[in-house]
């Protein structure tokens, strides 16, 4: 499968630039700091049994992580296509016997590889508490999966934005704007019940927080998958039509 060849190359390319290392470092530092703060809090006031350590530490940590990643993912996704278009190397992929769908999927999977690593590093922090206390593994798994799904949606949107422009910075700002808008969209519908429930469904945030609460609703999972598929399809369509118009 050609998409995996491209994905592997893309993942290694990410690590060839200092950007991925710097972001990994910064994200890990902030998460580690917050983790320490939450653990400190639990130690100062031990949980009374209704809300456990998993909620107090992991729940808070994953909540903050989602917002941090909203800032980080556009920085990682911005280069995927815009840089290749700018320095002409996209031609290599387009003139090779490879389908456009394989190119898009390959790039996407490459980025997801790095994001999955970030989620794994983050999940490892609360997991380390298992040495000293009882953890709710089901809840932790739901939180990890939720973050991964959320990031896959971020990445798909960012990838699409990077097919639109040759300027990586423009792609980053555009995807940041789009994600931010979809983040806060549910607040627009306050007061109007019909609008509110519709916007609530579109909000990236609300689906995530229902997973964070430990409610594994297939509707939430499907929402993120659909979101990703839509943006990946748009990217494929965009690359195909670039051949017609450019």
């Amino acid at each position, binding site marked *: 499968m050609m998409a995996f060849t491209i994905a592997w190359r893309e993942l290694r390319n990410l690590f*060839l630039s200092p950007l991925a290392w710097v972001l990994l470092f910064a994200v890990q530092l902030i998460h580690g700091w917050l983790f320490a703060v939450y653990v400190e809090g639990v130690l100062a006031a031990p949980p009374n049994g209704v809300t456990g350590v998993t909620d107090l530490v992991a729940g808070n940590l994953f909540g903050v992580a989602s917002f941090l990643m909203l800032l980080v993912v556009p920085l990682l996704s911005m280069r995927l296509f815009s840089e290749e278009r700018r*320095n*002409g190397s996209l*031609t*290599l992929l387009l*003139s090779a*016997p490879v389908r456009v769908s394989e190119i898009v999927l390959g790039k996407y999977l490459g980025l997801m590889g790095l994001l999955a690593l970030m989620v794994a590093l983050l999940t490892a922090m609360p997991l380390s508490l298992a040495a000293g206390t009882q953890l709710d593994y089901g809840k932790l798994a739901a939180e990890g999966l939720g973050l991964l799904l959320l990031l896959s949606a971020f990445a798909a949107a960012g990838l699409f934005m990077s097919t639109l422009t040759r300027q990586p910075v423009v792609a980053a700002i555009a995807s940041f704007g789009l994600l931010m808008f979809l983040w806060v969209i549910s607040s627009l519908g306050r007061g109007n019940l019909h609008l509110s429930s519709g916007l609530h469904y579109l909000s990236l945030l609300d689906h995530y927080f229902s997973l964070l609460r430990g409610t594994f609703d297939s509707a939430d999972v499907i929402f993120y998958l659909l979101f990703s598929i839509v943006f990946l399809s748009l990217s494929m369509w965009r690359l195909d039509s670039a051949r017609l118009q*450019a």
Partner: protein
Amino acid sequence: MPTGTLTNAAPLIKVENLYRYYGQRAAVQDLSLTLAKGEILGLLGPNGAGKTSTLQMLSGNLAPSAGRILIDGVDLLDEPLAAKAAIGYLPEIPPLYPDLTVDEYLLYCAALHRLPATKRRGACDSARERCGLKDVGRRIIGNLSKGYQQRVGIAQAILHSPAVVILDEPTVGLDPIQIREVRALISELGKEHGVILSTHILPEVQAVCSRVQIVHRGRTVFSDSLAGLAERMEILSVVLECRQLPPIKDLRAIEGVQSAEKLDNRRARLRLAPDADPVEAIATLAVKNKWGLRGLTPEYKSLEQVFVDITTADDAQSDVESAA
């Protein structure tokens, strides 16, 4: 699948009535071309003539507005994957990843072209050897000089031994020694592959191509073998240099000389009648009459002149057409 050995049956590239519009502007109009195995076709034209657009369409990077492209008998638009497998393409800007080493890059290209994993290393090594990249396999592409980067681009295009190699201005930005090396490489490639290259450098065509197609404003204005082009470069005049120049009227009297003009005390330009070859007669006469012959220099119609003639004739014609 058609193979390279069946070249007499089907040409490697067959393009029929290709059109490409950018909005209202036609970049390529009614362009047809064929390329056989062992041929090096030079696509020649001034800047903006539609050379790059044509090559982009041949390599599947640009969709034509109308027309048909057959690569090794496979329709590029119907079966892009099969057709693209037979192409090696070097665009104007070599499609390189500056962060990778030459080896990493070439191995990735080999994988993209679906070479089996066991053959990638060998293909990469032989492409590097042919392009003079033997010693730079472990260097980072971004740190290589422009000439070496261009060679990496060519190596990428021939890596999977495609039936057709398409090179868009392969010698642009290279120094004279590199240009000679790249031209030698192209001649070498022409033996086993079909090569199509674009250029606006006329001597390049003379140096490497076996056939020439001149495009101007998106149309083919001339298409012939290099010999056919050379025929258009007939001798126009000779410059006679003597210690004692004879009277001009004597020179005019020589058969085959249309006119003569004195350039200075020693030199005169003799304009030749069409299809006449009086050079030998002039030399004999010079010896017999003791003019003190020092030189007889033929003046060819230059390739530039031929090129300008062809393109301006086309301009004049289209002006007439648009006026009508």
